[in-house]
C-alpha cells in the first residue's frame, strides 16, 4: 500500500508540473461554464428544476470530455517510461507491475475527480443562483460526479493498456485518439444507422440495448439520464434506452473500470524493458 501511495504521490507531482492538473480543471470548468450560459434560456416549460436540466447537459458533455481527458493523461504512462528509459530501473525495485499501475491510477483519478468537481461545481452554483428550486437536483449532480469518475477510471485503464501495447508515446497517442473516436463517436453513429436500417426489428429489440450497455460511455449516459427521467426528454434520449433498467447500466459502469485495469495489467506484464 505504501508503495502504491508513494507512486501516486510521485505521479501527482509530475502531472502537476506538466500542467495536467491545470489543463484538466480548466477544460472541465470552461466547458461547464459554456454549457451553463448556453442553457440559460427559460426551461420552466419542461417542469424540471434548473440543476436537473444542467445535469442532463453536463452528462452529454462528460461523455465526450471525461474519456478524452482520461486518455490524454494515461497514454504516456508506460510508453513514456519506456522511451525515457526509466522503466528498467523501476522494475528492479520491489514493486509489482500491478502496484505501479494502481499508483498511477490513483494519481490520475485524483486529478480527474478534482477537474470534475470543479467543473460541475461551477455549473451547480450557476444553476442554484438563478433557480431556488435547483437544490432538488443535487442528488443527480452527485450521481453524475461519481459516475464520471468511474467513466474516467475505465478510460484511464484502457489508456494504460494502449500505452503498454504500443510502447512508443507517439503510437500510443494515435491509438488513444482513434479509440476515443471509435468508442465515443463512431459507435453511436453505427448503432443509430443500424437501428434506422433495422426499423424496429430484432436488432433494435434484442441487440441494441446490450450494445449500449457494452460501451462504457453509453452505459454512463443511460445511467445518468434514466436515473433522472424528468430530464431524459430534454436530452432527447431514445425510447429503447429508457427501457433498460438502471441496475444494468450501473453494473456496466462499475464493472468496466475493473475490466480495464485487468486489461492494463495484462498488457503491462507483456512489456520487456
Amino acid at each position, binding site marked *: 500500500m505504501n508503495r502504491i501511495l508513494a*507512486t501516486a504521490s*510521485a505521479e501527482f507531482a509530475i502531472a502537476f508540473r506538466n500542467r495536467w492538473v491545470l489543463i484538466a480543471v480548466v477544460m472541465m470548468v470552461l466547458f461547464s461554464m459554456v454549457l451553463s450560459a448556453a442553457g440559460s434560456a427559460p426551461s420552466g416549460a419542461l417542469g424540471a428544476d434548473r440543476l436537473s436540466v444542467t445535469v442532463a447537459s453536463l452528462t452529454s458533455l462528460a461523455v465526450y470530455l471525461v474519456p478524452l481527458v482520461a486518455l490524454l493523461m494515461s497514454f504516456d504512462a508506460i510508453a513514456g517510461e519506456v522511451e525515457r528509459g*526509466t522503466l528498467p530501473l523501476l*522494475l528492479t525495485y*520491489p514493486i509489482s507491475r500491478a502496484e505501479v499501475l494502481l499508483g498511477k491510477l490513483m494519481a490520475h483519478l485524483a486529478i480527474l475527480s478534482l477537474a470534475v468537481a470543479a467543473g460541475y461545481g461551477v455549473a451547480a452554483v450557476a444553476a442554484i443562483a438563478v433557480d431556488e428550486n435547483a437544490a432538488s437536483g443535487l442528488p443527480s449532480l452527485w450521481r453524475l460526479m461519481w459516475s464520471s469518475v468511474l467513466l474516467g477510471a475505465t478510460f484511464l485503464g484502457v489508456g494504460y493498456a494502449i500505452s503498454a501495447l504500443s510502447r512508443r508515446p507517439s503510437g500510443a497517442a494515435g491509438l488513444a485518439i482513434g479509440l476515443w473516436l471509435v468508442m465515443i463517436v463512431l459507435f453511436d453513429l453505427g448503432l443509430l444507422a443500424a437501428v434506422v436500417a433495422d426499423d424496429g426489428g430484432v436488432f433494435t429489440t434484442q441487440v441494441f440495448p446490450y450494445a449500449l450497455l457494452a460501451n462504457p460511455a453509453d452505459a454512463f449516459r443511460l445511467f445518468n439520464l434514466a436515473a433522472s427521467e424528468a430530464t431524459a426528454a430534454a436530452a432527447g434520449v431514445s425510447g429503447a434506452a429508457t427501457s433498460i433498467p438502471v441496475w444494468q447500466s450501473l453494473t456496466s459502469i462499475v464493472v468496466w473500470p475493473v475490466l480495464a485495469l485487468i486489461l492494463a495489467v495484462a498488457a503491462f506484464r507483456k512489456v520487456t524493458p
Partner: protein
Amino acid sequence: MTPTLTLKQLTKTYAGVRALSEVSLRVAPGERVALLGHNGAGKSTLMKIILGLIPHDGGEVVVTGAAPGSATARGNTAYLPENVAFHPALTGVEQIRYYLSLRGENPSQAMALLERVGLHGAAKRRIGTYSKGMRQRVGLAQALIGKPKLLVLDEPTSGLDPVSRRDFYSLLDGLAADGASILLSSHALTEVEARTDRIVILSKGQLVAEGSLAELRRQAALPVTLHVIARDLAAVQAALPDAVLTDGALVLTCSQEAKLAVLTRITGLGDAVADIEVLPPSLEDMYSHFSRRDGQ
C-alpha cells in the same frame, strides 16, 4: 560462504543473435568483480538477466538464494543501469524519496544519500536541469538505498569526473567491507585495476578470462618490452641483433621467463649502455589479448 550470485552455463539468444554462451560465474559476499568486454560483448545483457529484466534461454541464475526478478532477489539487489534516466520533472530529492519508499525505507534519508554522492546543492532542482554526471550521481544514490546484498552497476563511472570516480570507488570499498557483493562493468581499465578483487572478461558473449589482475597477467604471458639507450650504438646493436632503433632507443621484446637472462646480457655490455627501461605488458595489451583470442 554461499555466493551472493551464481551463474551456471548461462545462455541468451536475441532473435538469432547469440548474446551470451555458457557463462558461469560466482560472486562471494564482500567481493568486487569487474566485467570487461568490447562493445556488444554481452555485459549489459548479463546484468539484465541477473536482475530478472529479461529472460534467459539456458543455464541457471541464483541471486541471493532466489530466482532473478523474484521479490526476494529484488529486495536484496540494487541496480544502476547504463545511461540511467529519471523523470525530468521530479527534483533529485523527490526521486530519491520515491525510491526510498519503494524499498520500505524512511524517505527522510533522501538528503543524506544525495550528500553522500555530493549532490546536496542541486537536490531541490529538477532532474531535467542536471548535467550527465549529476544524473549519474542520482543513479548512484539510489543504488545505495537500504543495505543491498548485491550491487549490479552498469558502467557506473561513465560521465563522472576523475575526482568523483575516486570518491565512487571509495564508496564501493565501504560497501564491500560491509559484506556487499559488487558486479560492475567498465571500459576504464586503469580504475578497475586498483579497485576490484577480480576481473572477468567477456568476448562475443563468452567468458574468456577470469581472475585477479596478476593472475591474468601470468595467464596471458605477454612479452616484456625493453628500451635500451646506447652510448656506443654499434657495440650494442652488434650484441642485440633483434633490437630495432626507434626514437634513439633500441627496442626489443622478450618473454617473461627470458627477461632476466636478456637483462644480464645487456648489463654485461658495461659502459656501452647508458640506460635500460623495462616495460611490462600494459593493461590494454592484456585486455586485447583476451578479448581477441577467439576467432578475431
